């Protein structure tokens, strides 16, 4: 499913996907429409523009993942990696790409998302690194544990953030390409899990206070 409020973009992306052999099951021009259509269309991958007129892309991501935890969301943003990209990734997005990426890069990103791999840009790696550090330094609630990166994962993220191609990371660390991708994917999974736990805890706390 392609979600973008700019009609030319929507059509261009849908066309590229169709030409590459993907089936575009739905297109939406705003968040509400995307959430409405997702139930019936059941997409495997959603290409989502973060700048939507009615809802933030972050909320749409959350809604899509809640409706179908198996869906893979690739977020696109025109203005680069900022707080909202990090929030979308925390809310369950599988990866991020800038809108002006060339077609081959875009199609590669969609393929990797469909395969279940994370799509990282150097900027996103920097944001994710910063997020783990922030969580490690922040005061921890009772019974909670801040998610941690292993040394290996930190090393790999740092290399992604400085633009080292996956192949080079693999050879430098004497790992297979697949292992590197798994490590990167793990960092996202840790963030997603932590976010989900946080949301549940928040809901419980506030649900209880509503009842009393």
């Amino acid at each position, binding site marked *: 499913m392609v979600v973008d409020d700019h009609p030319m973009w929507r059509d261009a992306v849908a066309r590229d996907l169709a030409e590459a052999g993907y089936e575009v099951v739905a297109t939406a021009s705003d968040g509400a429409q995307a959430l409405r259509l997702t139930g019936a269309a059941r997409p495997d991958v959603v290409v989502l523009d973060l700048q939507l007129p009615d809802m933030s892309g972050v909320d749409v991501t959350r809604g899509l993942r809640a409706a179908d935890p198996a869906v893979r969301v690739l977020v696109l943003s*025109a*203005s*680069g*990696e900022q707080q909202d990209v990090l929030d979308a990734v925390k809310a369950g997005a599988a990866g991020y790409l800038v809108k002006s990426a060339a077609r081959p890069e875009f199609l590669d990103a969609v393929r990797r998302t469909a395969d279940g791999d994370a799509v990282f840009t150097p900027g996103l790696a920097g944001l994710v*690194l*910063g997020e783990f550090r922030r969580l490690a330094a922040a005061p921890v609630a009772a019974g909670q544990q801040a998610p941690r990166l292993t040394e290996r994962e930190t090393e790999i993220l*740092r290399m992604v953030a400085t633009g080292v191609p996956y192949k080079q990371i693999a050879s*430098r660390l004497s790992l297979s390409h697949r292992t590197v991708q798994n490590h990167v994917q793990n960092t996202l999974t840790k963030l997603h899990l932590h976010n989900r736990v946080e949301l549940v805890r928040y809901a419980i706390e506030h649900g209880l206070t509503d009842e009393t």
Partner: protein
Amino acid sequence: MSEPHLTEPLWRAIAVYRVASLGYALALVATIDRHDYSRLDWAWAVLAAMAVWTAVSTVGYTRPERRAVPLLTADLLVSAGLLLSTWGLQFPADLHRGVMPVTATWVAGPVLAWAVRYGWQAGLPAALVLSGCDFALRGGAAGTISVTLDGAVLMVLAGVIVGYLARLAAAVERERQHAIEVEAASRERERLARDIHDSVLQVLALVQRRGAEIGGEAAELGRLAGRQEAALRALVGGSGQAVLTGPVLTGAVDIRSLLATEASEHVTLSAPADAVLLKKEEAAELTSAVRAALANVRRHCGAQALAWVLIEDEPEAVTVTVRDDGPGFPDGRLAEAAAAGRLGVSHAIVGRLRDLGGSATIRSAPGEGTEVELRVPRAR
């Protein structure tokens, strides 16, 4: 004029002063100078009047609107009146001997009030008026003039200093308020600008895409649009970082916004989502070091070389890594070059970081580019 909330502590202090000096005057009459008074009951009457006026004026001044000319003038007149009324109290001889009038130090109340409200320009005249009354009262006999003069000088000093400081505090508060308003307005502007930037970036990216598809002249247009898109996105990425008021006041600076200007179509910046704060001088030095490293990349790898700048924020230190995709060089070469004195720029970088108490490490391998890791420890 003066902002009420800032001068509140001063008004409270004045009230405390009045009560304390009233207590002092009571103590004087009750214990020390009994026999100096020809009309003791009159002294108690004056003290009673002082007590009443202390209560009235303190209550009056609690409301900011009432801190104005009418109440202040009444305050001054009552104090002067009570001061002068002691003329009949004390043996004329004793007055000239320099005995303190019943009102003692209490008369300074209105001087402070005028000073806090309208500055030293009002505190000074009030002090002069009361000093004048004091002189009129105690006369200018040779032996006593120094005592009266002391009192007068102290009152004038109080009026001027308190007045000046009160105005200063008010001015600082106004400027701070203004800065906060400007800050809020600029943040609002940035938010609006972001929406516009996104639309422009989208259209440029579309033009690039379609241009490539159509081919010919359109492709060239597309490439131009693509370059502008990258440049604008790099610019927007920098200004998207939040501008904080806190750090402005504490002298700390967000290194991300300083390094944002280096982002371009060839230089990619990766940073945490939150501000990375450093002391102003440290931030400036680090930025110069990064700029030097990037200039080095351009010099050794050409203008088209790609570089990445990663900012990391850890509790112990801030680390900025600059990596390029150039040819790289074997480890040994670095030491040789240093020995041959050809590493002028790298020397400067290492030197700068050492001065900050940090470190600069250069790593490279053939075919893997060069990495410069700049680390600035945090004093915690």
